[in-house]
């Protein structure tokens, strides 16, 4: 990864009639990074990707690719290539001709086309399948052909529109790593659109989260998980318990807050939060909570409650604990080390939390 910006979006906006799909999008993508646009469906992420590809013209703002203003440059002349959600494999062509499709537009010698197609197919582990018909491919193979067809063009930026959503879970996980390795080997900038937070987190160098047409936060995955800038992102990425809190004291980087169940805690201020005030909201990840029969020692905040539901996920167990003063049960997750489910619904239980694992989410937007 270099410091050079390969894509710059400046105040990009897209309106369809009265509906604004993307508003005031400002984003710089570094050369060679794996960037994901993450958000729920309808948040404008695909529209943003399509404006980079040239399938849609921005209503306002500018798109630069490698320093060049893309206004008026059609999709077929842009230095980008795309992996479509449906893969868009040409059904009337075999694998080799699908991959060679774009190269044939460039007046490249036949021998070189053949060589590059062979290399591209080997790269995606489909070596020797040139003659295979497009309709005889499995879902995973189609995905690989789409990838090879785009990469063989040696684009400056590879755009991926929900590239793994059509695959089953096992294959999806495998392809996540393969695509990540491929991206690192080739050093090409990948821009992926996805609604799957795990996909975005496992593959990306940085993630941009979009809601309602707006880019809300851009950060590396661990930062995004630890310091989400508002409640929307906190609930969209991973699981989170939300609690109201009252700020009694504010000093530099810290806040002293009164919580409804864990008492008074000194927590860290979240630098990503834009709006703050006296009444804030705090978040606690389920895996950061200690759960035990006895009152846990050495925890900054503790509370007693009653187990309401138990959800067994295999790798961990989620306990939903009803606590006085909090309407919604608090979720606590415990790794399944010993293959046992220690607590049953109705059991009295203690929860413990360290103040360092409490996330300041800024002004409480739900209720006072």
């Amino acid at each position, binding site marked *: 990864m270099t410091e050079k910006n390969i894509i710059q979006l400046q105040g990009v906006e897209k309106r369809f009639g009265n509906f604004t799909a993307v508003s005031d999008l400002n984003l710089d993508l570094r050369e060679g990074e794996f960037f994901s646009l993450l958000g729920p469906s309808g948040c404008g992420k695909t529209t943003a990707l399509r404006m980079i590809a040239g399938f849609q013209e921005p209503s306002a703002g500018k798109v630069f690719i490698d320093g060049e203003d893309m206004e008026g440059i059609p*999709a*077929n002349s842009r230095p980008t290539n795309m992996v*479509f*959600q*449906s893969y*868009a494999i*040409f*059904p009337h062509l075999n694998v080799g*001709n699908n991959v060679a499709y774009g190269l044939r537009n460039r007046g490249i010698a036949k021998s070189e086309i053949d060589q590059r197609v062979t290399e591209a197919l080997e790269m995606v582990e489909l070596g020797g399948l040139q003659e295979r018909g497009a309709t005889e491919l499995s879902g995973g193979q189609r995905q690989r052909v789409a990838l090879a067809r785009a990469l063989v063009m040696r684009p400056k930026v590879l755009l991926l529109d929900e590239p793994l959503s059509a695959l089953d879970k096992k294959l999806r996980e495998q392809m996540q790593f393969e695509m990540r390795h491929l991206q690192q080997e080739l050093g090409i900038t990948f821009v992926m659109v996805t609604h799957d937070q795990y996909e975005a987190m496992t593959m990306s160098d940085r993630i941009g989260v979009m809601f309602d047409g707006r880019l809300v936060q851009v950060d590396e995955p661990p930062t995004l998980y630890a310091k989400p800038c508002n409640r929307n992102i906190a609930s969209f990425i991973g699981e989170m318990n939300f609690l109201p809190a009252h700020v009694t004291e504010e000093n530099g980087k810290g806040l002293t807050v009164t919580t409804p169940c864990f008492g008074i805690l000194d927590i860290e201020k979240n630098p990503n939060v834009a709006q703050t005030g006296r009444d804030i909201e705090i978040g606690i990840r389920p895996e950061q909570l200690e759960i035990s029969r006895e009152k846990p020692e050495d925890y900054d905040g503790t509370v007693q409650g009653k187990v309401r539901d138990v959800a067994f996920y295999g790798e961990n167990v989620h306990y939903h604990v009803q606590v006085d003063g909090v309407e919604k049960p608090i979720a606590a997750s415990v790794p399944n080390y010993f293959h046992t489910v220690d607590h049953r619904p109705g059991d009295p239980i203690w929860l413990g939390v360290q103040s360092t694992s409490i996330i300041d989410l800024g002004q409480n937007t739900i209720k006072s």
Partner: protein
Amino acid sequence: MRSEATKGLTLSAPATLYVGFLVAAPLAILVAYSLWTQTYVSVDRTPTLANYREAFTDPLVRHLMIRSILIAATVTIATVALAYPIAYFIALRAERKTLWLLLITIPFWSSYLLRVFAWKLILGFNGVMNSALLGLGLIDEPLTFLLYNEFAVVLTLAHAWAPFAILPIYVSIQKIDLSLLEAATDLGNGPVQRFLRVTLPLTIPGIIAACLIIFIPTVGDYVTPSLVGGSDGKMIANLIQVQFGAANNWPLGATLSLLAMMSVGFVAILFVLSSTSLGRRIR
């Protein structure tokens, strides 16, 4: 409980009976007749190939057969060439597809004969076309090449068959996944190349269907040539009709029918094979 086989037979029985009585049986009768000979008042039922010999040696038969195929081919090419852009527009650009499809079927609300007569009125010596051109002062005397020739036959048939070409082509364009067109653009194609490399090869089945739907019945059409064809526009079906009517030679009529059927089948197969292999060669 009835078995699967019984169920299948029951379900296919109506179609089987229909095809048996209305296609296979008449065809068998036709074959039988073609091997008999006509005497003055009765039919001699001794099997012979005399009719075939006559059909192959008569220059009139060959001439009419070739002309029929050429006219039908012209009609097919003209109709499909005109229908494709319309189908393309409705499938990819039009906002009210159903309305457009409805409009296209409107000619069918009147009978085929009426439509042929309408063309007669339009193209005739004192017809709409000539009156309009005279009125506008573009010509001094009525044009005579409009009616009673091959041109009139082609024009009338192309108009009559247009919807049959538009619909299958429309369906085949409609079926194309639009992301394929975007992928072609993404890989560097302009609109023309994209059409030639993706849209066209993917719609070949629709084009073939349209061609066959038009070509096969057109070769055997006799209403249009008799009404607007004049003597230059006569086709093989007119000759066949004469054999079963005025000439009263059913065996020769049956022979000509079978030969016409075989020629059409041959041309159609040749066409399907060549266009599919052409489609496969587009990369």
